[in-house]
């Protein structure tokens, strides 16, 4: 497709690398439109976290960047953008609230479409597209939400959803003849059958499992920790590092001011080591032990409790007393403690 001037039409799209965004891009490539994909790194992607932990034996394909994989399959350039601090601020203060977990889906879409629009203004482009499907997600993909997102992004008429186009009013790219509406789709709802058929038709075989979900913000366990963090910390002071730590280990809140994170395996131990300098850390001595990090300033009885919990998850959990080192900076205490009883743990678990 070309504009009246004869130049090729260029579309800027949000590409997560999931099936829907891949198909949306392919639908436009099929029409001869130049497509540039924007892939946001939000800091909440499960693949990226698996990669940071790099557990032995983990299949590297489960850790690859799906946006880049989609770009390679479609032969379209992908711009990877770091969503940064502004994204975190939005996640902590979403204007349109959270979904069932900690997912601010409407604000997230608005943030990313704004980003794509900024990219289009800077680098050129004629319209924005996404892989959104009407009725697929309860919070952000019903008709009212789709209209709201478009309006709030200030690009009314220039936001195309190729997969659900037949259920939506014609956009400017369709009215101007840049995009052939008859070759777009009328997909709606949660079933992925039509998407699977399209992927088969277009020979797209290597994509992540549909609706598998790869965002921590929509994860039940992460959401509990996220909201606990928001409930116990001034929201504007929460840093990226604190969000990263919510993804790792077992979390226990011991008091309004003290929370601990206990590593679950060697990979998490190694990961948490990077953060051990931020406050108190605990480790059972001369045995296999998790690294435990404390957030807040535990007093002496609380440090003994943390040592007991650390001992519980050490290889000496069946011993009557375990020696645990509690460290903060150059300070080290040696504590002899009994491993805490499992029945006591549940009251603190987040």
């Amino acid at each position: 497709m070309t504009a009246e001037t004869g130049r090729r039409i260029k579309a800027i799209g949000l590409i997560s690398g999931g099936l829907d965004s891949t198909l949306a891009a392919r639908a436009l490539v099929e029409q001869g439109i130049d497509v540039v994909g924007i892939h946001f790194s939000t800091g909440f992607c499960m693949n990226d976290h698996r990669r940071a932990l790099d557990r032995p034996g983990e299949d590297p394909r489960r850790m690859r960047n799906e946006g880049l994989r989609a770009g390679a399959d479609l032969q379209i350039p992908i711009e990877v953008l770091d969503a940064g601090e502004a994204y975190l601020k939005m996640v902590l203060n979403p204007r349109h609230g959270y979904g069932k977990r900690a997912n601010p889906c409407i604000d997230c879409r608005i943030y990313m479409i704004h980003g794509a629009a900024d990219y289009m203004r800077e680098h050129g482009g004629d319209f924005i597209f996404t892989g959104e499907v009407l009725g697929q997600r309860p919070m952000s993909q019903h008709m009212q939400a789709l209209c709201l997102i478009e309006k709030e992004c200030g690009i009314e008429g220039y936001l195309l959803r190729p997969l659900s186009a037949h259920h939506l009013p014609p956009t400017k790219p369709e009215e101007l003849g840049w995009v052939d509406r008859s070759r777009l789709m009328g997909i709606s709802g949660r079933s992925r059958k039509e998407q699977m058929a399209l992927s088969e038709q277009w020979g797209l075989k290597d994509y992540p499992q549909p609706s598998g979900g790869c965002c921590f913000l929509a994860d039940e366990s992460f959401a509990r920790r996220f909201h606990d963090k928001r409930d116990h910390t001034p929201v504007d002071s929460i840093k990226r590092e604190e969000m990263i730590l919510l993804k790792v280990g077992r979390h226990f809140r011991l008091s309004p001011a003290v929370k601990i994170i206990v590593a679950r395996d060697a990979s998490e131990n190694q990961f948490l080591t990077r953060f051990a300098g931020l406050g108190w850390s605990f480790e059972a001595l001369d045995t296999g032990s998790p690294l435990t990090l404390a957030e807040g300033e535990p007093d002496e009885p609380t440090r003994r409790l943390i040592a007991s919990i650390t001992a519980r998850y050490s290889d000496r959990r069946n011993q009557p007393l375990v020696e645990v080192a509690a460290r903060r900076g150059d300070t080290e205490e040696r504590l002899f403690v009994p491993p805490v009883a499992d029945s006591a743990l549940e009251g603190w678990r987040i």
Partner: protein
Amino acid sequence: MSADQDELRERAPAGLRADTTIDTVGLCCPVPIIRTAEAMKRIAAGSVLEVISDDRVILIDMPAWCRSTGHRYLGARRADDAFHLFVKKAEGARS
């Protein structure tokens, strides 16, 4: 850092030298790719960029990024407990 031998099946030719090198050791995905894209914008077409990384999955991501942008992936080698990946900037690449 660990990698199976077959992950290095696209080996960089012996004696290949880079015009520019960036060190992304210790940086998590997708920062090395972001740094690569930035560096490619600063070098001339035909130049070779070397990217050093200790992230084994970059051996999948970098060739994918090259296929999407049109730059040429020349392969990788291991040295000093890191991967050294080589990319040649293409004339008229898409990014």
